[in-house]
């Protein structure tokens, strides 16, 4: 295909991505290094029958001209990144100097909102992903051994947790684990503690969110692995059986190596998706116990005062996190590509 033709075919989608994905990245980088102008205050003296009072008011006119001259705001450099709400460099340095053990240092870090969000996001990502891959694989092997008719039905119901909007999936589970819901009562009956509430303690909230994460994404792993199982070479399996391999050995040495590329694929997609976790936190109303980087940005953006600079700084830091997470994959793809072209 000629470059010219390629350009015309590709232009609409490239334009859409340029305007609504590439440009906003530039926009948030700009926003994150500019802070809103500080209010220009003027003192005015009001004299009435009971004497004079001075009051301080915002000079609206001066603010307007200032905003018109410099619409981005006041240049703040990296100030927003290093303040207490984000990387909190001075607090971290302080904690490093004053604490004598790693445990104490990390508990100090846990008091800083950004690090708390980071801790939850990383825990969620790196706990959910292996669990959902294992569950998905187990379900795929089990369903694959069923009768053909039952298989279709099982796939249908297995798709549900994944296909529903994440907010709806989270709500459906949340209503069940409510202390008045059926699962919440079951858990408190098993723990023999009628006052137990899964919503009240931080570790339990984290566990519930991770359970949601595995529940909602295992179907994806299941479907991909199930499709992979249909392509396992039959002769290899048969010769393994001839050689006296047990069932477990067949799975371990024939099936798993065959599915290895799919495991990488599922892990990549799920790491990317889990790192952006947001809806379950909203659905579980868990912001008090668990903030993710995305929900951290959302709470800056929502509310009465939209703290755009703060949200932008967190967004940039999150994107850097995604880039780090994605880099091994990109390096590998790049090597594959180089290897192919030489």
């Amino acid at each position, binding site marked *: 295909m000629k470059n010219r033709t390629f350009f015309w075919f590709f232009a609409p989608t490239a334009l859409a*991505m340029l305007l609504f994905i590439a440009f906003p990245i530039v926009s948030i980088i700009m926003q994150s290094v500019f802070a809103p102008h500080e209010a220009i205050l003027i003192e005015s003296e009001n004299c009435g029958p009971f004497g004079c009072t001075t009051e301080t008011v915002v000079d609206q006119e001066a603010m307007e001209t200032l905003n018109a001259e410099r619409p981005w705001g006041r240049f703040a450099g990296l100030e927003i990144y290093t303040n207490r709400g984000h990387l909190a460099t001075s607090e971290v340095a302080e904690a490093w100097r004053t604490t004598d053990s790693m445990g104490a240092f990390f508990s100090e870090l846990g008091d800083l909102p950004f690090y708390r969000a980071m801790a939850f996001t990383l825990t969620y990502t790196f706990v959910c992903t292996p669990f959902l891959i294992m569950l998905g694989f187990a379900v795929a092997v089990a369903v694959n051994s069923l009768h053909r008719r039952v298989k279709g039905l099982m796939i249908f119901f297995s798709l549900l947790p994944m296909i529903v909007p994440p907010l709806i999936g989270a709500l459906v589970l949340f209503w069940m684990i409510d202390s008045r819901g059926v699962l919440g009562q079951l858990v408190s009956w098993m723990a023999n503690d009628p006052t137990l509430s899964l919503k009240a303690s931080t570790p339990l909230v984290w566990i519930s969110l991770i359970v949601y994460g595995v529940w909602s994404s295992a179907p994806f792993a299941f479907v991909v692995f199930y*499709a992979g199982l249909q392509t396992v070479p039959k002769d290899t399996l048969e010769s393994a059986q001839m050689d006296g391999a047990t069932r477990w050995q067949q799975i371990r040495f024939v099936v798993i190596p065959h599915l290895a590329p799919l495991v990488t694929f599922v892990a990549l997609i799920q790491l990317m998706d889990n790192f952006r976790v947001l809806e379950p936190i*909203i659905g579980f109303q868990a912001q008090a116990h668990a903030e993710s980087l995305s929900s951290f940005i959302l709470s800056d*953006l929502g509310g009465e005062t939209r703290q755009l600079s703060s949200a*932008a700084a967190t967004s940039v830091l999150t*994107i850097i996190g995604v880039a780090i997470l994605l880099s091994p994959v990109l390096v590998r793809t790049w090597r594959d590509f180089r290897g192919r072209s030489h």
Partner: protein
Amino acid sequence: MESSGVDRRPLSLKIGLWIFVGIWFVIAAFPFFWTVWGSFKVELDFFSIADWTNAIFGRNTEATHGSPFTLAGYEGAFIQEEFWRNAINTLIVCVCVVTVSLTIGTLGGYALSRSGKKYVFWFLIIALMFRALPQVALVSGYLPIFFDWNVWGYLPTAIIVLVAINQPFTLWMLHSFFESIPKDLDEAAMVDGCTQFQAFRHVIIPVMWPGVITTGLFSFLLAYNDFIVTTMILNEGNRTMIPQIAAFLGTTYTEGNVMFAVAAVVSATVPLFILVMFFQRQIVSGLTAGAVKG
């Protein structure tokens, strides 16, 4: 695997497998059945402190409404809170997003699969990176500009943003479907005097229908399931279903009308249930398209 293994599988293994599949079935499907059943009850039954079997038999519902089933939640959501408006907005958004996404996505995906130049690799890698970006980070980039231009709050804005944000995914999926169509087909058409666009339009698209339908399904799901874009960009009057459900939670917990939210959640799930019923094969093939074909 199945044909060779079935007969020789010991009974204990068979039973174990059946139990495991049964447990998974309950984990996957039971929450939905429970919520659907509970949506026809009053709140005291759905959240029952006294006795959990109330949620099954609806004793409080019978006491209030004279029957163990009531449509009160649905009436509250659809008539009092006018949830049908949100449903219509969702329909508009989904139809527009699917149409625009597929139009520009098929053109782009076709170009990527037929070019053979080195830059194609880079476009695909950039698309992959774009797909990994947290959407909420992008939305925080739009907001000040949308406010300045006075386009915040309207359906077309949300539609354009949703199309653009989901374009990387659409491109990857369509690219892998186009790759599976032999290149000789459009080359032959062009030898016969077609332009590249005519070859695309009259030769490739007719054989691409399965891929287009599958990708369309996923565009639909992405638009339907979206929470961030619709919540942050639409104003109160233009909300689609998902942000409205989130809004129910904010207001109804205090009013004690959580059943509105339950009814709304069930109503928003039903179309997806039907969709999966009819298009299960396409959804499965779409999920695996990227993986199996590499």
